[in-house]
């Protein structure tokens, strides 16, 4: 039997063997777990791998990121992914394999490739969106209509966030003087409790949904790290099916979170969310202005038309009257002329007739006949026109033009 080794010697042997067999740096895909950093700036964590079907752990290794690396690696990673360097995410890291006599097996991280994590996050978001689509709820919130006047606003945010202050300030100081009512439903907007906290704020709004027009979920500017809380299925499903339109302004530049994808309207910042609401009010105010201007113009036009109609009528009266008058005058003149003519001719005719009669009367008078040599024979004052009326011896009176003579009938010839 060989001389037994001390534990230290054995571990030293393992250490040496490992460094001989695995001298390089290796790119490794793994999930982060139990990430902690201490006051000295070093970061300690566990790398794990789960079986994709059973979700059971199938591999595990301790890892370290030394402070000099971690100082740059963490912001670089978070900047690139919009994701905190924290437990639960998948990473692609370059490691050296080390063994320490006291602390054992350890992977020391010297580099990280954020694109792998981005890809993994995108895949996870796609999966969530696909699931929501299959459930038929993906676009439900987008199908809601934002009220014409979105004045009653339920704000889900952290009360201390700068973004919340910006939002309220922007709304309350809008240049048009539009009225807005905002009520804060406080929630944690970063860290592990985002999902739970925002969900419970949504529940609180839902219980009073008839008192609000829209929900605004906002998060202040600052670091764009750790948006993973907004990429969860439960939160997305809840927002998609929320009965009020949701507007998100969670302040980040990278691809939409799942929450952004299902929300009714997505804007970049809280200020932009306020602008969006103010614009909506502006549209309503513009429509009202246009209508009242149209009304004014319409009424003026209508009155102008009526005035013109009256004026035309008014102007027609004098000319109408004078033409009627002159017509009547003409008629009168004509009639007058006709009348005098008629009278004259009537007089002439009558005079003529009278003269004729006069003539005839004159012609018929006995004096005239007597003067022409005729005479009238009378017996006992009566004119005799028949000899048979007389007998011999009758005394006759003969009237002449001048004077009378008496005579006696001697013979008759009948």
């Amino acid at each position, binding site marked *: 039997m060989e001389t037994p080794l001390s534990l230290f010697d054995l571990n030293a042997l393992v250490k040496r063997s490992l460094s001989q067999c695995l001298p390089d740096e290796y790119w490794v895909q793994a999930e982060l777990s139990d990430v902690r950093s201490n006051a000295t700036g070093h970061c300690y964590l566990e790398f794990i791998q789960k079986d994709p079907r059973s979700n059971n752990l199938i591999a595990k290794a301790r890892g370290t990121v030394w402070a000099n690396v971690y100082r740059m690696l963490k912001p670089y990673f978070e900047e690139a992914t919009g994701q905190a360097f924290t437990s639960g995410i998948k990473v692609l890291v370059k490691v050296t394999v080390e063994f320490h006599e006291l602390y054992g097996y350890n992977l020391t991280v010297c580099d990280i490739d954020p694109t792998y994590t981005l890809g993994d996050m995108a895949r996870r978001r796609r999966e969530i969106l696909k699931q929501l689509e299959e459930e038929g709820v993906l676009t439900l919130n987008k199908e809601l209509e934002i009220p*014409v*006047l979105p004045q009653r606003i339920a704000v889900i945010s952290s009360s201390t966030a700068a973004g919340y202050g910006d939002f309220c300030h922007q709304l309350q100081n809008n240049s048009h003087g539009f009225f807005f009512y905002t009520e804060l439903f406080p929630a944690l907007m970063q860290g592990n409790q985002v999902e739970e906290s925002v969900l419970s704020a949504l529940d609180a709004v839902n219980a009073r949904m008839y008192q609000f027009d829209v929900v605004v979920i906002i998060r202040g500017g600052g670091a764009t790290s750790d948006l993973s809380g907004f990429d969860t299925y439960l939160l997305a499903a809840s927002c998609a099916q929320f009965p009020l339109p949701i507007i998100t302004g969670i302040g980040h530049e990278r691809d939409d979170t799942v929450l952004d994808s299902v929300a009714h309207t997505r804007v970049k910042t809280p200020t932009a969310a306020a602008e969006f609401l103010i614009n909506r009010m502006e549209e309503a105010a513009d429509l009202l202005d246009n*209508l*009242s201007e149209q*009304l004014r113009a319409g009424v003026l036009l209508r009155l102008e038309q009526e005035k013109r109609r009256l004026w035309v009528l008014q102007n027609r009266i004098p000319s109408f009257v004078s033409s009627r008058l002159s017509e009547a005058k003409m008629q009168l003149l004509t009639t007058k002329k006709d009348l005098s003519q008629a009278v004259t001719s009537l007089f002439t005719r009558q005079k003529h007739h009278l003269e004729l009669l006069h003539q005839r009367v004159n012609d018929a008078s006995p004096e005239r006949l007597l003067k022409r040599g005729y005479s009238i024979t009378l017996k006992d004052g009566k004119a005799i026109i028949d000899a048979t009326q007389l007998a011999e011896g009758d005394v006759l009176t003969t009237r002449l033009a001048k004077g009378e003579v008496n005579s006696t009938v001697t013979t008759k010839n009948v």
Partner: protein
Amino acid sequence: MAAKKETYSQAIERLEKIVRQIDNNELDIDLLSEKIKEANEIIAFCSAKLMKADAEIEKLLEEKRQSE
């Protein structure tokens, strides 16, 4: 409960109708002043909605004040 109060959108619809009637010469001149009065009331109502808290919101504000 009293009859539901007219909403902003309903009021705007009523205003649009009056404007249309005037534009299309559908309003008797005798009705004009009455309609203008109605339209002005609607405009005042709508403007107030844009700029002021209505009774319902006042109630919310009051509740908020009391809870604080």
